[in-house]
Each structure stands twice: as C-alpha cells, then as structure tokens.
C-alpha cells in the first residue's frame, strides 16, 4: 500500500492508504481526526470541508494521492483553542442545533472570509450556499459569518 506524508494543521503525518482513498477517510479513520464529517461522499453537502493551501475543498472527493505537498487545515487546526474569529462568532450567535454540519460550515466560512474580509449579505449567502444544514440554522450561519467579518476587520 502506498504511503503519504501529509502536512495537516502544521504537523507532518505519515499514512499508508490506497491511492484513491478520499482525504476525509484518511483524516477520520487513519489519523483519528474526526472533526471533519462525512455527509454525502459526492461533494454535495459540504460537511467534509477542509482547507487545502487555504482553499475550501470537499475532502470526501479528494483522493489522498492528489494532496501532494499542499498543506491541509481541518477544524481541529483552525485555531489551538477555538479562538478563530469564525469559531468565536459561531459561539456568540449559538449557531448549532444538532451540530453535525457545523465544522464544514465553519471551514467554508473561514476560507471565504480570508479572501473576502468585508462581504455583502449576498456574497455571504453565495459563499455558504454549498453547505447543507439539515436543521436549517441558515439565519444564524449568515449572522455568524457577518459577525466574524466584523471581528476580523
């Protein structure tokens, strides 16, 4: 089985996995980093969102062999102590209901705000449209992204 050296949250991890194994399952099953969630497996729901060199990607559809030297950030590494402005905003607004999709929502929002620090309401909605929240906490997600932008300003 091929082995890979992955840069995750600033640390190097060696894993042995089939080349077509999605990054999602390498994170969850091989490396016990379960914050990244499995939702659909076909890049439709966003629950598995991580950053690849700062870009939001769906880890369920990214084969481990395609990661290469790129650095991966997961919800566990977004901040050391939950202090990233998006995490703080999520807590202040009390966004989650069941909470399952929220790691993916936070990763999408944080990658988006890094590129667009002063978004309009419309831009926030467009950016978050790819992430499904089955509990429909959409009003609060929108508010939390706007609040996080304010905190980052």
């Amino acid at each position: 089985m091929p082995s890979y050296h992955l840069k995750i949250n600033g640390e190097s991890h060696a894993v042995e996995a089939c080349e077509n194994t999605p990054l999602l399952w390498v994170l969850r099953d091989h490396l016990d980093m379960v914050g990244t969630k499995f939702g659909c497996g076909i890049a439709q729901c966003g629950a598995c969102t991580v950053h690849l060199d700062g870009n939001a990607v769906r880890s369920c559809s990214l084969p481990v062999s395609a990661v290469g030297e790129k650095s991966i950030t997961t919800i566990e590494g977004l901040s050391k102590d939950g202090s990233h402005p998006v995490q703080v905003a999520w807590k202040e607004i009390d966004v989650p209901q069941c909470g399952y999709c929220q790691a993916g929502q936070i990763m999408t929002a944080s990658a988006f705000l890094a590129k667009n620090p002063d978004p309009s309401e419309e831009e926030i909605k467009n950016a978050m449209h790819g992430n499904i929240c089955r509990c429909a906490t959409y009003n609060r997600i929108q508010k939390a992204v706007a609040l996080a932008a304010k905190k980052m300003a």
Partner: protein
Amino acid sequence: MSSTTSNIKFNRRDFLRTSSLAGGGLLIGFNLFTACKPNAKPPVDLADLNYKDFNAFIKIAKNGAVTIFSPNPEIGQGVKTSMPMIIAEELDVAWDNVYVQQGDLDTENYTRQVAGGSQSIRFGWDALRQTGATAKQMLLNAAAAKWGVDVNELSVSEGIISNKAGETLGYGDVVEEAALLEVPGEVTLKDPKDYKIIGTDRKNVDIDKITTGKPLFGIDYKTEGMVYASVLRPPAFGQELESYDASDAKAVPGVIDVIEIGDKAKKLLAGEKVNWTAQLSPSAKVVVIAENTWAAMEGKKAVKAQWKFASPPESTEFHDKKLTELLDGKEFTTLRKDGDVQKAFAQADKVIERTYESPFLPHNCMEPMNFFAHVTDEKIHLVGPVQTPEDAANTVAELLGRDVADIHLEMTRMGGGFGRRLYGDFVYEAAEIADTLRKPVKMVSSREDDMTTGVYRPAIKYRIKAAIKNGELTGYYLKEAAINGNMYGLIPNFFPAGAVENYQVDVAKYDSNITTGAWRAPYTNFLAYAEQSFFDELAEEMGADKVQLRLDLLEKVKGTTDERIQYSPERMQGVIKKVVEKSGWGKQPEGTYQGFVAYYCHNTHVAEVADVQLENGVPVVKKVTCVVDCGIVVNPLGALNQIEGGIIDGIGHSMYGNYAFKEGMPEAKNYDRYRLIRMKEAPKVETYFMENELSPTGLGEPTLPPAGGAVANAIKAATGKRVYKQPFIQYDEIWKVAEKPVLG
C-alpha cells in the same frame, strides 16, 4: 410564594432519592417520567451510576460545583441545555457553575431512558422543577441545623445560603449533612417572576466541542481493534437476497471479510416479538468488513448480488392510483363524526372540494445511520445515536437471545433525528454483525444506503370538502388516504373540530412494502399545509376575510364542553392577532404578497405570515413572521433556533422534497438528485412569543407543519395560482424559468 402552574401530582418519595457519595458530595437520583421502585437507592460511587431506577441525577460536590447528568437523547432540539436549566433555576445555582453531562449507562443495569420528541420539556417541567427545589430545601435544612436557626429565616442566591446575622454558607459546605437528611415531603416552587435562569438566553452546552471538532457523534466513536462494516441491503423494496459473489469484494484492499446477516432478524419477525420501533427487514444482507470505512464501502460496491422479489415492486405511479382509489372508495375508518356532513352538503348553497397531494420524504439526517457494537459471551456493548435506546436494547436482547441486563448502551449526540432514529434497524444490524464477528465493529451507512433504505414519511392525499350556507361554514369533511396509514386518534380534534356543526374525519390506507414512519411533526407535517391552503380558498369562496374567518370560527369553540378538543381557542386567537400586528398583514408594501396560517400541534399554538416577492416573475420567500404560544420559554436562544429551523425545514420540504419510486427502487440516492433547502432559499424568520406563565410546551416540531401552507397561500397571492401538490417546485407554470438545484 409558591406558584405551580401544573396540576400533575408526584409522589416525591418515589421519584427522588439521595445519597452521600463515597468521594464526597450529594447525589440526587430522580425519574423524569415515571415513579422509580420504592426501595431504589442511588449509588454512592459515581462509577456505579445507573439508570435502572432513576433516569437522571444531580451531583453537588463539596466545592459547590453542580453536575447534572442529563438522561435524554440530544438530537439538536436542545434538551441537553434546557432541561438542566430548569433544575438549576429551582436549585438556585449560578448557571456558570453547572456542568452538564450526557447520562452514561451502567454496564450491568441498563433499563430505561426516553427520547421525548417535542414532549421532553412538557413532561419534564414539573419533575425537573421539583427535583431542583427538593435539593435546595435539603441544603437549606442542613444549613439551618448547622446554625441552629429556623429554616424560614434563611435566604439563598446562586448557591450561597445567608442567615439573618449576615453569615453565609456555600452549598458545598452543607452538602455532606444534607445528604443524610430525609427527603422533604413538600417543597415550594419559585414564582416565575423570580426566575433568573429560565427565560434567559443560554448557549448550547456542547458549543465548544462542536466548534472545535471534538468527537461527539456516534460516527466519531472508535475503540482499539475496531473494524468497520458496510451493509448491502436490497436495492428495491420487496426484494430479498437470492445469492451473491464476494470474490471481487474480498480483493479490495483493506477488506477483511464478507459475511451474511439477517437470519436472526427473520426468526425474530416470524416470532412477532418485535416492537413498533423495530422496522426489521426480512431479507438477508451482505456485510463487508474492512480496516476502514472507505474500504468497507468500496468492498460493498464490488459485491455481485442477485435479488428476487418476495412481494411485488411498487412505483409512485401505482401509489398515486391507489391513493385516489382510496379517496373515492368506501373502505375507511371514521376517526371523528359530529352532526351529519352529508346532510350539510345536500342543504348547502355552495360546496367546495379540493384534493392535496404529497410524496414520500426521507429524513436525511446529516449524520448517516451508524452504530458501534461489541458482543462477547459476557456482555454486549452498544454505542451510538438512537432516539429509542430502551427499545433498541430490548430488541437486540431478543434478536441475539440474550438477557437485556447484558447490554450496555451508550448514547452519543445525534447528527439529526427527525424521527429516523426512532427506528433501531441500524442498531440490530450492528449487533448481529458483532455477534457473528465477535470483535468490536462500527456499521456506517453511506448517504445512498441511508436515503434508499429509509423509513419514509408516507405519501398522502387529502380530500377536503366544505358546505357553505347563508355565508356560514356548515359542514367540513376531511378524508386521508395514506401509504401504510398516517393520522391517529387525537389529530381529528384539532381545529376546526368543535367550530363546525357537521364535521367528519375519515382515514384509509394502502399497505405497502415500502417502510414508512414518523418524520418530524408526524401526522401533521403535510396535513397542516392542506388544511391551511383549504381555509385560504374557503375564505375566498365565502368572500370572507382570511383572518376574520378563523377568528370567528374560533369564537364558536370558546366555552366548549367537548373535552376531546385539543387546542385552546383563546390562545389560537392570541397568536393570530399578534401575527397580524407584527407582520403588517394587509399593510404590506407594493410588490410583497403575504400568506397567513394558524395552527396547533404538539401542544403549541403558532401563527405564521410568509412574505413573497416576485423576482424575474418567480415567487421568492423573503421573510416569515411567526408568533408562538408555548407557555413559558425556558431558553429563548435555543427556542428561536428551533422555530427558525422548523419553519425553514417546513418550507424546504414543501418546495423541493420529492421521493419517488420506480420498480420498488427510489429514484434519488444522494443530494445530486434530492434537493434540500440551502442558504439562498432560506427566508429570514422573525419570531415573537406570547408572554404568559403557562407551563412550557414543545418547540422542536410545531412551527414546521403550517410553514408550507403560509408559502402556498403567499404564492397564490403573488401569482394567482394555487398549489395543490408538494413539492411546489413541480409547478412549471409558476417557476417559469425551470429552476435546477444549485449544487455545492
């Protein structure tokens, strides 16, 4: 001053027991739902904590810290936060000093824990308050004894007891003495005016773990030596496994073994010892065991299985025909009958009849069904997300021919429930796999497994018929035709029962091989849309004001002696009047079109107004104004989240939810072909509560059912077109520009 708003009486001695903990501190065991055994005693060591006799515990440590072990499964409805808040209020402690822990079950003594749906707060309200108040009284009694003063001279605030001399004692200072005291026979509950925690915004107790990605959910669970299982179930309803070839599957890297299960389930089904939540499939299934989830899922794709139909395959077209036949047919059950509707129709000036149709709906919990199981000769360890842990444990015991006392079931936070996790089929599968393997194993469904082997909200048709004479509603007849049945006894006593002299509700069903069951706000999630659409049209036909028609009908119910009537006409009128005021009903700006609904279900009264605007000629839901009467609002921050979610969920499924079958097989298998509401389609929800001191009622469900009706009525106002079928998106004439699902 005491101010109990409930008339439920508890035998306190039966539901409360205290003991001093071996490690120091006071432990109070109580049962939220039923009396425990009269001689039951809570453990003296936390390691012995079990739920055999009590289903919840409070621990007060010597340092004054309070831990509340919350018994109820958390599916996102917020009870892990709101139920402990009620205890903390009466206990009079600072919320910041309260630590909430999901009740963990004891290895040897597992018995009862209950998932209450929208009923957790309603049923728990008295027991939770009395428990907190009882503990407080014991601590006060202990302090009074220590100081040698009358207990009535003492006051308490945030866990600090004060006497007249100005001396203070913390709860932790008297907890050892308190644990030795008798449980008081009577306690005084707070006047709601004095509440400091109830009615204030408190954040989800798991918020830090959720936002930092800590393991919380069943799918996150892992133990040493655990393997992963993926189950190949029949692709079509009605099918059973004939044969399979696993040689390719076994060649997939990471695959350990391929086994067959289902034999035990089949025997159990034959014995008819299965409870209502079981939903066991009679077919054998092929299970791929692997080193990781991906390998198990890949291995499953490589299994070559042959299936045969044990019962004929059904399709949406077939169901459509059957349900129409049932509506037209003479086979039905009458659930309620007042006066003579046929006579009312015969004598009417005008008769209106409409039919409303809905498809099946899958639950689509974001966390797919999964469960961990480890079976040995000594015990059975089960871990995962299930709304009915007691039924799950009992059925697993039955299935494996074991004693239920061998079972240790741990509940995890659930990535959504919506009713799907009431049915424990995935628990039994995991247990049967583990029984065969004799190794720790986690069964994980793929999204496709989850969606295509579900327990669906049934397809339903309603026919509603009204008689109008001299400008009055004189007759109302509703008939339900549903796959496997839907409505039950109490629902026909909802509005407009009691308001119309001649009133009848009939139900008919077709028994299908497609599994159906409870889906968020069961029984009314489609009914409310149908009835609220009908009332809109009824007002138009009668030339009546849409709001006034409801208010006038409700007026007739006031002072009713009919004890079957479930709703309160006064509370319903209250939410209606307030939503009219808050939504600017009838005063909307040019270009905004409104739809009005008022509904009662799950013991809560709700009125909603949807605001729709036309964008490029297409109706878009911009805002929903909602007024809720749920009595006392325990945690407004959590309550608002439930209300917003319920409304957007209701609109999403009314607009887009469509689950069709062909040859017994679901047509959509994943989110590329099944549309859920997303950010850009979600309206802004503005919520107002009725302020009163009545006992709290449920909030996880009641705002969902009428939301589709509010939108349907607003669509009519905006476009002049009435939608009679869900999902609304199928009306091409309204959505002129064919809207395709926007993909992520």
